[in-house]
């Protein structure tokens, strides 16, 4: 049983219902809103939190098992952990911070290994600096070097990029991606940033209120969420309700009724006609038609409406369209800013978009999904 195997369950005080495995060399990202139990799971793996029921094992070694009353104390678990604010020892310089995790070696070996680790994270020459004299990015690297020092069986990263500025973060992403090649242990990354998870992780687990809702490859989860709840947690905003009308195997489409509007979706025969469904179309599958020259060719699920809002972030413009057939169902999409300018996309003008059939993904209908999803998106939740 190589890798990390975890299964945790409790109702109170922090609800947990999570089971997953992580293989050596694999990066598993735990994503979801704050307070979803991500850090609690990391702390349970590290041994500083004890859930009421559960089992955690790493490479044949059981660290925690409530049924067998096993609980290996934190300092005997050989984990490496990078904390959100790094938790460096402020009274020790960079080298001593790394050496504090190398007590199993002789003094001379410790110094040599610490120097080696600090140069692995590009900090050679800064060994004598105390944390207060290091920048955020440098502190993060010391924390990574310290976490790797014990040659941990599991590496835990708790939002390791949240406390540095954007430019530093980009550089650290590249360094971590580089470092991954030499890491042969399971790596658990906690983050609420989906792009970060998609960039660094092999798989992601979507967590909400301590429950794992879906695990899969980032690109899979991002376009094929298992439920409307997952879609909303992943910030996919084009989530709607609909009804399966019929299947057309010849053309390869499943026809969907969207509040009176017929849509073609990729053929999904397992949904029986008449079934109520939720469906999502990720923003990348919403195509803006040219406004100056209406195209006859763009017949694929055309939706006409008026532009309600535009929001420019650098090279990208975020657009909200209120469809004419039901203005209560806004469609969100993004285009390069030059496309928005060329098409004179401003609030109030008419526009048409295509919802690409291959991007329309059907999910089970959820009676209360709407309310729950929105609650999850309230700031601070």
């Amino acid at each position, binding site marked *: 049983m190589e890798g990390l195997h975890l299964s945790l369950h409790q109702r109170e005080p922090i609800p947990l219902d999570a089971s997953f495995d992580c293989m050596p060399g694999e990066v598993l990202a735990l994503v979801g809103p704050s307070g979803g139990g991500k850090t609690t799971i990391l*702390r349970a793996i*590290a*041994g*500083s939190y004890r859930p009421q029921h559960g089992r955690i094992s790493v490479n044949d070694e059981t660290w925690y098992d409530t049924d067998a009353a096993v609980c290996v*104390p*934190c*300092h*005997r678990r*050989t*984990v*490496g*952990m990078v*904390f*959100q*604010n790094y*938790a*460096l*020892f*402020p*009274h020790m310089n960079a080298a001593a911070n790394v050496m*504090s*995790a190398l*007590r*199993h070696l002789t003094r001379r070996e410790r110094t040599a290994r610490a120097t080696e680790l600090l140069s692995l994270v590009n900090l050679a020459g800064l060994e004598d600096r*105390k*944390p*207060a*004299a290091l920048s955020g990015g440098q502190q993060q690297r010391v924390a990574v070097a*310290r*976490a790797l*020092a*014990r040659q941990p069986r599991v590496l835990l990263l708790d939002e390791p990029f949240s406390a540095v500025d954007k430019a530093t973060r980009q550089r650290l992403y590249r360094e971590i991606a580089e470092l991954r090649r030499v890491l042969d242990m399971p790596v658990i990354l906690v983050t609420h940033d989906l792009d970060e998870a998609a960039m660094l992780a092999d798989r992601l687990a979507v967590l909400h209120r301590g429950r794992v809702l879906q695990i899969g490859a980032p690109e899979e989860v991002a376009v094929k969420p298992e439920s409307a709840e997952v879609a909303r947690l992943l910030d996919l905003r084009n989530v709607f309700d609909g009804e399966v009308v019929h299947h057309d195997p010849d053309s390869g489409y499943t026809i969907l009724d969207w509040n009176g509007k017929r849509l073609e979706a990729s053929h999904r025969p397992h949904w029986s006609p008449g079934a109520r469904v939720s469906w999502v179309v990720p923003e990348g599958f919403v195509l803006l038609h040219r406004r100056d020259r209406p195209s006859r060719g763009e017949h694929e699920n055309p939706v006409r409406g008026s532009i309600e809002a535009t929001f420019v972030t650098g090279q990208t413009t975020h657009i909200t369209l209120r469809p004419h057939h039901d203005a209560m169902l806004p469609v969100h999409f993004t285009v390069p800013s030059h496309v928005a300018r060329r098409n004179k996309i401003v609030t109030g003008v008419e526009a048409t978009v295509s919802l690409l059939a291959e991007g329309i993904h059907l999910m089970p209908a959820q009676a209360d999904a709407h309310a729950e999803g929105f609650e999850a998106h309230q700031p601070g939740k």
Partner: protein
Amino acid sequence: MDWTALGLSLQLGVVNVLCLVPVGIGVGRVLAYRRFRGKGLAEAAVALPLVLPPTVLGYYLLVAFGAASPIGHFWQLVFDQPLVFTFEALLIASIIFNLPFAIQPMQRAFEAIPPEVREAAACCGMSPWRALLSVELPLAWPGIVTAMVLSFAHTLGEFGIVLMVGGSIPGETRTIAIAIYDRVQAFDEAAAGQMSALLLALSLSVIALTFAFSRRVGRQLG
């Protein structure tokens, strides 16, 4: 100038601080990190000597140390001499009335260490003892020094409790604070004035040194 009394006071202060450091670290740490039933009551008990009149505390200690009480009786059995009006009684009383001065600064110092830093120590493979020595004590050091200085200075100046449980036996229980009172009663204002001035200077310099020290350590820790 009663040099014997000054020597006795300094001796009492030093021994008292040496006894209080482990007590303060132990109790301060438990109060800072653990959650348990009755914690509020425990904290109140620690703080009690701050608000209780010294004579009240002194009275209870006198009763507790007396031969009629189990403690006094036990002491008599083991050491073959009464506990009251001895240096040992003075020391035990000093430890008790200095508990808040020793424990509270240490408790605050331990509380100020971020929980993640302690978790990081465990993740680095440090046993709880190793983490205490390598991480917690160095970080809590300014609080520990403050506690030591406060209890030392407070012991030098304590009067009411000392008089109640120690009396005024020269070389045994007559501290400098008692000696000053003694001199005033004997209309020896010159000696009382000298000793008061010395105590004032001593207390002021000890406190000033502590403040300077904690500022320096604070800068070092960033």
